[in-house]
């Protein structure tokens, strides 16, 4: 237990001392994960809605595959992205390996299935509600998807935040494709793994507290923004 208090104290000291290294890796963590969440949401939210609105032959199989992909070990995603981006791989010439971009790509692959799955679930209920009206008004497929996304935004925000939560704490994939290079691709999670490896449990735990604190702040900020944007409550 003493270790935990020590770590909390250390975390507070790091934060309020504005330790430049801590600021740097925290900002990089945020930058990578926020970007990945935005991209994955841009793909996942419409896809989740599209899967609700469209009935096609292999729909069930596609949904089953997406749900299964949620369980994909990040290390496997990391290896896959590494092989793609390696100098010896098909996209090696782009020189993206060991850059924040590579980490964003890996995180997008990891969280898109989660966002699709949760948004699919949420949109399905809304669709049951809206179905008759949208059909009666002869809405095109695109209009149906856009209407469901617009009116389901609360639930979709939850889906996006779930994706964010998974990505911000992810370490296996970004360790491989980012390389945990100091000042270049080191983020909170890879720094935690590194300090744990050194047996510096206190510092690792302190970084963990910083990570959790940041995740909480992001969630509060998003909810705060979404409320002020819409004066009335639904």
């Amino acid at each position, binding site marked *: 237990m003493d270790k935990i208090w020590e770590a909390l104290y250390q975390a507070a000291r790091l934060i309020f001392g504005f330790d430049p290294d801590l600021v740097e890796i925290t900002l990089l963590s945020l*930058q990578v994960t926020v970007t990945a969440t935005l991209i994955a949401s841009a793909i996942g939210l419409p896809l989740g809605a599209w899967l609700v609105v469209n009935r096609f032959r292999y729909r069930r199989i596609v949904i089953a595959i997406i749900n299964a992909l949620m369980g994909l070990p990040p290390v496997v995603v990391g290896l896959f992205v590494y092989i793609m981006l*390696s100098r010896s791989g098909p996209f*090696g010439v782009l020189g993206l390996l060991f850059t*924040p971009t590579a980490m964003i790509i890996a995180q997008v692959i990891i969280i898109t299935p989660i966002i699709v799955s949760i948004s699919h679930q949420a949109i399905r209920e809304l669709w049951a509600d809206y179905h008759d009206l949208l059909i009666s008004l002869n809405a095109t497929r695109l209009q149906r998807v856009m209407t469901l996304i617009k009116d389901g935004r609360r639930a979709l925000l939850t889906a996006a935040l779930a994706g964010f939560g998974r990505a911000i704490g992810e370490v296996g994939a970004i360790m491989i494709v980012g390389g945990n290079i*100091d*000042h270049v691709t080191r983020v909170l999670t890879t720094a935690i793994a590194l300090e744990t*490896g*050194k*047996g510096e*449990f206190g510092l690792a735990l302190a970084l963990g507290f910083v990570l959790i604190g940041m995740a909480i702040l992001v969630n509060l900020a998003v909810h705060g923004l979404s409320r002020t944007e819409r004066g009335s409550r639904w």
Partner: protein
Amino acid sequence: MTPKAFLIATSLALTATFAAAENIKLSVTTSFANSGLAEVLLPEIAKDIDLNVQLLIVGTGQALELGANGDVDAVLVHSRKAEEKWLAEGNGTHRREIMYNDFVIIGPSVDPAGIKTSATAADALKAIEATKSKFVSRGDDSGTHKMELALWQNAGVTAEGDWYASVGQGMGAALNTAAGMNAYILADRASWLNFANKADLAIAFEGDPVLFNQYAYMPVNPEKHAHVKADAAAKLEAWLTSPRAKELIENYQIGGQQLFVFNASTK
């Protein structure tokens, strides 16, 4: 400015700080990184030859793989057989020995196998096997793991059974496991001295010359991967083998102990 634009701007600013000097990617073993020597050497390298060394801290197997794929410009590892095989496959230009440290056998302070008084490393391992004392193996194909396997073979003992736990992890994680299980483990001295979570573990055996751990520097072959920074790799090699490096390496101490012995031939 939107929050996102701010983040991007900030990160660009951060990257820009390090864009001034030339970058070189070097894959190194965890044991080297955990020793803490890198934190002493890298700022000096940046100062002396304006080279920004980006470390990829991985196991020996992965370090060599990154080099073979052309994803780093040079490697610094410590596993002679694997290094020679790697060179034979045309992955690098040459092998340059830089320095060595030594391995030690770590174990519970009560030393249940009684290896403190063993004459050789082989005798120590035989005693561990004979008493079925718990032993944690890296099991990750790293240089340290390879050294451990060679030592078992040398001792003529098959390391198998409940007492032998292969964890498939890096040095730090394996040491954490050994600390948790109160088990014996083979570690490089640097990692051990730098390791903060020692629990009830202590050095149980040391000093046998077979435990010496030679680090070698190998630039990736530019004929195989045209994009590698061969010039920067050569510049780094020159620095690593210079009297300046010798001085820094040999003065690096933890708890009053010198960790590395510089042994590069000055050409």
